[in-house]
């Protein structure tokens, strides 16, 4: 039983570490600069966004939950053809915690009104912590840990963004510097991977905009974490938001997750979108509930 518990915990940790280090969420399209730093220079307005991710997992008879919060500031400066960004995040999963803070710089070149190319980088400091006082699940047959284990590393992401009329295409090299994590389970190198984002929005009538976003991970198999997210969402009357996000893990376990998005725009200044996982198809008998939210202030 303990072995099963540890296996489940490990699996969940892997998923969560993936989210923590790479910040892949169902609402990725609401703050693209975190997936591709080049996007900051392309943006029209300054923005501050706050987002949360909450997951709850029934493990044996207990309900285990975890949440993370993130704040992000993006400032495009047209005179300099540049964009600056700042982001910070805190994530806690049981006895593990993860803190990330970083700065973004990107430069844009406009070929003409319709075609732009931007190059950007994200430099971040990451701190992983194993809190000895919080260890509960692994304490049965693991050696006792009396002191906190803290590990920090520096990470660099590089992104390229191309805009052609309504079509946006971005490519990111995540973890360009191959940072190394030393934790309780040993030393791990975060492998570099390539992500691609595609975005195309078009109008349906006068009042409806259909927004389509695609995010793929690890397209050249630089690591084993392969994932694809497709988001389609309607913005009605420039106010109401409703859509769906599909998530596919193309690993041997083949997990498909579907989430609904709903949201509200207030005068182009405030925007709130939340996502709720509806169901998942998976070989593993693990059920999880995920709720995400993001609130953006444009100024």
């Amino acid at each position: 039983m303990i072995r099963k518990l540890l296996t489940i915990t490990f699996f969940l940790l892997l998923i969560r570490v993936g989210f923590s280090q790479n910040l892949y969420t169902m609402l990725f399209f609401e703050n693209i600069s975190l997936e591709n730093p080049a996007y900051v220079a392309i943006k029209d307005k300054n923005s501050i966004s706050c987002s949360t991710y909450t997951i709850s997992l029934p493990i044996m008879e207990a309900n285990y939950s975890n949440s993370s919060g993130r704040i992000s500031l993006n400032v495009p400066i047209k005179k300099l053809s540049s964009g600056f960004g700042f982001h910070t995040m805190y994530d806690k999963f049981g006895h593990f915690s993860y803190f990330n803070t970083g700065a973004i710089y990107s430069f844009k070149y406009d070929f003409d009104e319709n075609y732009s190319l931007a190059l950007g980088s994200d430099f971040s400091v990451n701190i992983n912590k194993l809190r000895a006082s919080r260890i509960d699940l692994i304490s049965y047959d693991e050696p006792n840990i009396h002191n906190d284990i803290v590990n920090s590393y520096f990470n660099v992401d590089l992104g390229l963004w191309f805009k052609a009329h309504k079509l946006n295409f971005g490519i990111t090299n995540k973890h360009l510097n191959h940072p190394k994590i030393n934790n309780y389970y040993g030393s791990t190198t975060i492998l570099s991977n390539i992500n691609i984002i595609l975005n195309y929005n078009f109008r349906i009538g006068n009042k409806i905009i259909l927004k389509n976003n695609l995010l793929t991970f690890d397209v050249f198999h630089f690591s084993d974490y392969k994932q694809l997210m497709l988001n389609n969402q309607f913005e009605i009357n420039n106010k109401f938001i409703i859509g769906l996000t599909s998530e596919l893990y193309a690993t041997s376990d083949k997990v498909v997750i579907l989430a609904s998005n709903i949201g509200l725009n207030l005068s182009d200044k405030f925007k709130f979108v939340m996502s709720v996982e509806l169901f998942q198809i998976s070989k593993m008998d693990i059920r999880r509930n995920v709720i995400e939210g993001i609130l953006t202030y444009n100024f």
Partner: protein
Amino acid sequence: MKIYIIFILSIICINLYSQSANDTLKLKKTAIRLHFLPFGFSVEQRLSKNATLIMDLGTNYNLTIMSQQSIDEAEIMLLPYIEFEPRIYTNFQSRLEKGKKINYFSGAYGAFKAKGITDLIFEGWLIQTGPLIGYQSVFSNFFYWNIGIGVGSTFIEEDIRFGIIGEFKLGLNLN
């Protein structure tokens, strides 16, 4: 926490900067309210054309049903709170143009909530902070309702949790 404070200040400063000298909106300076869902008392003070600050004192109730030896026992727990919420209303002007009411601060808004809640029985406390959007409206010039939703963090003694935050209030305008 510092980032949240900077966020509040930046929102207020940006709004003050954008003020027009010709303020044609006729809004109350202060709205005093008694709300019974949850029970409490609040004051909304106008800071500028579109910005207000709410100070709210009240109590949440938490109904707990416990089963002991096939006997259900219901217990209502009172959770007193104090709340501060700076708001920026986004549609006063458009509501005026459409002939809708804006008195008593009726309209859509973006806000930042800071709420402290205490538990009298277990002597615990929690602090909830975060940005939210919402809508407030008056009916019959006497009753009001307010709904808001956003994201935030909840500090429970030494722990912190993140997630969706929200509020719903129903009550009376007293002035």
